[in-house]
């Protein structure tokens, strides 16, 4: 059992939109080098909690602590600066650009000297760095020069993940990573998630696909109606138990 400070801790988070209460008491603790699944039925508050962690929203009450230190995350850029990256469900990839271009989108490498200052890109440096990243994650893509439009769903997901972790990230948030993928491709993505964890990052994963959650997650947090029900290690629970907690059929001892 870890007694060190969690990498990220959210305590007592509350958030409402007008009269709709999205989170009334959410708690969440993320360890280093773990895959932590966030599950719950629709409307449980998973997306809202994620958006608070990634800086899209600010909580109405409650605290966020990173490495034991209190932080306020005012916007997505601050989240990124703290090492928190999000891979959205739509991947946010520029389809007609290649993998290298996508990896460096918004953070391009420039040539040296005067040319670089007027905006000339160092495409070969970006290409080789992209190849390194792909290799690090053990992803094989025909060429980083192809438009990502032509890649399979799993490969596109891989590019999006590679982009998320290439920048000194510590925490990666993944929103329904296998939602649009077939069985084989989903398997590849789960493998990728494990690889990312093995390299020392922490992953928060939202998923409705409980079998997959059980395939890859180290710990599972269940939300229901804006409240954290419990956090359990995968080995300590079963799929049926989790479903029960999500729907409220099973009462949980505090």
């Amino acid at each position: 059992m870890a007694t060190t400070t969690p990498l990220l801790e959210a305590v007592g988070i509350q958030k409402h939109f007008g009269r709709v209460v999205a989170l009334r008491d959410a708690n969440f603790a993320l360890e280093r080098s773990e895959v932590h699944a966030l599950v719950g039925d629709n409307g449980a508050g998973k997306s809202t909690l994620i958006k608070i962690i990634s800086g899209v929203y600010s909580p109405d009450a409650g605290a966020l602590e990173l490495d034991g230190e209190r932080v306020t995350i005012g916007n997505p850029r601050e989240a990124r600066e703290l090492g928190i990256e999000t891979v959205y469900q739509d991947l946010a990839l520029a389809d007609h650009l290649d993998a290298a271009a996508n990896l460096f989108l918004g953070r391009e490498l420039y040539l040296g000297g005067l040319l670089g200052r007027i905006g000339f890109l160092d495409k070969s440096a970006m290409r080789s760095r992209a190849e390194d990243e792909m290799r690090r994650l053990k992803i094989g893509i025909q060429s980083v020069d192809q438009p990502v439009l032509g890649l399979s769903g799993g490969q596109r997901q891989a590019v999006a993940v590679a982009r998320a972790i290439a920048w000194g990230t510590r925490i990666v948030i993944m929103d329904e990573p296998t939602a649009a993928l077939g069985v084989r491709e989903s398997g590849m993505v789960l493998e990728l998630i494990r690889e990312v964890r093995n390299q020392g990052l922490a992953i928060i994963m939202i998923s409705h696909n409980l079998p997959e959650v059980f395939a890859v997650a180290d710990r599972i947090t269940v939300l229901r109606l804006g409240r954290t029900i419990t956090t359990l290690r995968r080995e300590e629970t079963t799929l049926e138990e989790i479903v029960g907690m999500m729907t409220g059929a099973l009462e949980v001892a505090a």
Partner: protein
Amino acid sequence: MTSTVTEPPRTEPGANGFAPPPEEQTRRQQVVYLLSRSWLFLFLLLLVLYFWLASPPSTFLTGSNVAQIALTTSEVVLLAIGETFVITTAGIDLSIGAVLFFSGVAGGEVMLKLSGTSAQTLAGQYPHAWRGIALGVVVCILAGGAWGLLNGLVITRMKLPPIIVTLGTMAMAFGFGDLIDGGSYLPAPVPPGLTHGFGASKFLGLYYPIWVALVVLVVAHTVYQHTRFGRYTAAVGSNEEGSRRAGISVDRHIVKVYALCGLMAGTAAVLDLAIFTNTTSVAHQTDNLSAISAVVIGGTSVFGGFGTILLSAVGAFIPTVLQNGLVIQDVQPFWQEVVVGATIVVAVYIDQLRRRRMNR
């Protein structure tokens, strides 16, 4: 509690399902890709070949005829360059012909007013021609840029679709231009320093306007392929929201792109005055169509994302080569319009086939 789901088998590193296919397939794909991109060059070459053989000797492929084709196309090339950037962002600029006309009127009037008194210019005297030409050229280009800037600002601030906004600026630019010159031509032709000395003069064998188009073409191509500006243009067109999330100031970039298109129109206006000595709104009603056709033939998707500058320039040549060749063939003028229109449709169709092939 044990997990009820078995994990997928671990495979060796480097081969976890994302493994690349064998080497030869990649190379063949590369060759197919290259051929499919350059089909337009081949099409143009075929056209030239056909007309060369089908026309009487020393008529089509003579130095002077080719020079004339290039001269008449130089303006459209500039417009097509600007339009390529705009269309790559998934936008469109219908106002370029009108902006060209307005810039020509504004710059032309400045040239005339500064070159001499109206009595002098009406009589063909231009005592201060160089002062007039210099300032007139600057006014042309800036006027174009100003309209482009307006387009960009209205599109991004008021969040209106580009097709509607540029339709509106098109009407306004034609209107203002007509207001300034009373609905017809400039009162006198622009100074011969610009027309004879630039529009009709050659440097190392090529007319000056052709040089301008060439230089702009090379610079634009480099910017498009190798700079942040070009990459952001493609990114915004491919995924606007994604680009925003990646930290790109999308709105600011879109304004820059439309402003660039306007600057191209302003530069084309300088060439227009130099070649045709005067300007009238009638002559520019379908410039936007010529430019957009050139871009579409060249293969820049009107849905944004993918595009190259050089192919747009090639696309600009196809209608002019066609028209010139058909005239030399003594084809009836009415048939020429049919053929040019049909060729555009065929070119776009072939491009669509190629795209579908590529995306499997």
